């Protein structure tokens, strides 16, 4: 009979709980941004795909016309930020779920954050520095 020493009671080591509300806020953010996105994204899709002939009419001039108005600038900017943050946070959850090793988890999240930041900045830049006279 081999004699592995048993710890009693056998226990599973667990990381210590940290006092932080980060998960709470991120969870809340998902719901709040979700509700706002319903209007922004569904509105966006509706306008783009269903009003006046849908995607067929989209071209540079159309975009130019739209972003001439600050209303659409704000709309698209909010949508961009919210959707990206919402999506990134969602992806973070998914990585937390499936990445088994801490290392993998860390690097996947790094890639996610860097590319998301890049896209958000790029999008913002485009909306603000867009020059309708380019055409």
């Amino acid at each position, binding site marked *: *009979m081999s*004699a*592995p*020493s*048993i710890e*009693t*009671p056998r226990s599973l080591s667990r990381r210590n709980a940290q006092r932080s509300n980060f998960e709470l806020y991120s969870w809340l953010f998902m719901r709040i941004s979700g509700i706002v996105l319903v209007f922004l994204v569904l509105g966006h899709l509706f306008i783009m795909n269903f009003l006046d002939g849908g995607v067929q009419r989209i071209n540079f001039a159309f975009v130019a016309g739209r972003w001439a108005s600050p209303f659409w600038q704000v709309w698209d900017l909010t949508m961009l930020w919210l959707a990206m943050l919402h999506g990134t946070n969602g992806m973070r959850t998914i990585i937390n779920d499936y990445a088994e090793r801490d290392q993998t988890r860390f690097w996947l999240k790094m890639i996610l954050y860097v590319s998301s930041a890049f896209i958000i900045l790029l999008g913002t830049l485009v909306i603000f520095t867009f020059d309708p006279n380019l055409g």
Partner: protein
Amino acid sequence: MQTHTFDVIIVGAGGAGMRAALESSTRARTAVLTKLYPTRSHTGAAQGGMCAALANVEEDNWEWHTFDTVKGGDYLVDQDAAEIMCREAIDAVLDLEKMGLPFNRTPEGRIDQRRFGGHTRNHGEAAVRRSCYAADRTGHMILQTLYQNCIKEGVEFFNEFYVLDLLLNEESGEPVAAGVVAYELATGEIHLFQAKSIVFATGGYGKVWKTTSNAHTLTGDGMGIVWRKGLPLEDMEFYQFHPTGLAGLGVLLTEGARGEGGILRNASGERFMERYAPTIKDLAPRDMVARAMVQEVREGRGAGPNKDYVYLDLTHLPAEQVETKLPDITEFARTYLGVDPITELVPVFPTAHYAMGGVPTNVETEVLRDNEHVVPGLYAAGEVACVSVHGANRLGTNSLLDINVFGRRAGIAAAEYANSVEHVDLPGDPQGATIALVERLRSGTGSERVAAIRKDMQDTMDMNAQVYRTEATLKQALGDVQELKRRFANVSIQDKGTRYNTDLIEAIELGFLLDLAEVTVVSALERKESRGGHAREDYPNRDDVNFMRHTMAYKSTDISGEEYVRLDYKPVVTTRYEPMERKY
């Protein structure tokens, strides 16, 4: 093999074991060994309630409770013990409430109480509301609350450690407790536990019978272990058959159902208990109700295609009340019989339920080795023990009370004793007998199978040693059990592995069951009277002249080396209640 050393070892993590652990672990280094995860213990199956004369809803006092207990036990109760239990009952309930137990509440916010069989006001005048309850899951709440408090107090558990032997050593020629031997289910390893005090709280042995409310794991290990050490077992002929088990299955429907107003009816719808106990009718003590039910069936008034059960009728109660006060049993009837108690009658029949007898102890829970002497360092509490507060028939709710009152006492006594003595040396080759037992079964090549022998034992016990017994049926049972013991010597198991060998465990458990079946039958044969849970058709009356005494059974060997059950007797302790005829 490993050796562990503790001050106190508690065997069993049911209500009694954990209540003891809560007391002992704050006073001495304590370990709890249990063959099941604590929350799997059968205390969790208890439904109806726990009695204490709190007088929260109507006038009551603990002296009436004591009287009911003594009378309910057909005067075989040791009255000093009953007094202690009923007096300490009030604190036992309040302690549980303070630990967090979610009792049902009265409109004033106090612990609610309801009626239960045999519990009366002013010495039998009328049924009294004495049972403190949490819907019909009182045992579940007790078990969970005790486990939760064990977590809080950091009690050390060895889960799935089967205790297979008790180690005694001699001190000036007398046995003293030294430790236990346990088999770790996960690995198949043998562990030695050395301790100054050992508390047995291993529960009952209902699996001797086929139709039973007891769990598969209630195989009387603790009684069996003690028995094999040559220590006595008390009053084993007194086994309680609960009136309302689901017919054919044995799953229990609490007496609380009748406490809430449920009625027993025979095939023609008659409320037959009116004939047997005119005053408190359906709330008569269990032995009487069970006999009445069997009587109805025997006289052809049973219901169903085989006329072999009677009905529990809850249909006249408001659906609300049934759903909220008796939710679990309502679900059991729906799940297992497809019967809805709210609109239909539920088929019920007596089911093997509770061992009044067991390991004899005094009121300090010390285990007796004969009528007077205790085994120093050895304690027992709960269903495994016989104090005897239940005498010949336990009243409903008095067992949850017993495990709390005497579990607590055992924990305190064991710890205090441990703090006053040194460890006793383990006897030579302490694990030898256990290894031999395990190896014999594991390497057995016989042709007999555990399940087949177990079934035959349960069949004969159901047939011959149930609610009613006669000389002839008991002799039949005895012959059968002895034959089964011979077959058991030739048993073999299929699982030869070391890890989680449940095949092996079942074989070991069957060994204990067979021993206990034999003691039960032999004790029953010699008690030539009817009293409480022991009803002899050939001796239908109580005989206080010859049998107002406890049976003490010992394992002995005769000159030819043959083992047999030797019976002796112990006087009943009487303080204030003289035996009277038992009428309700």
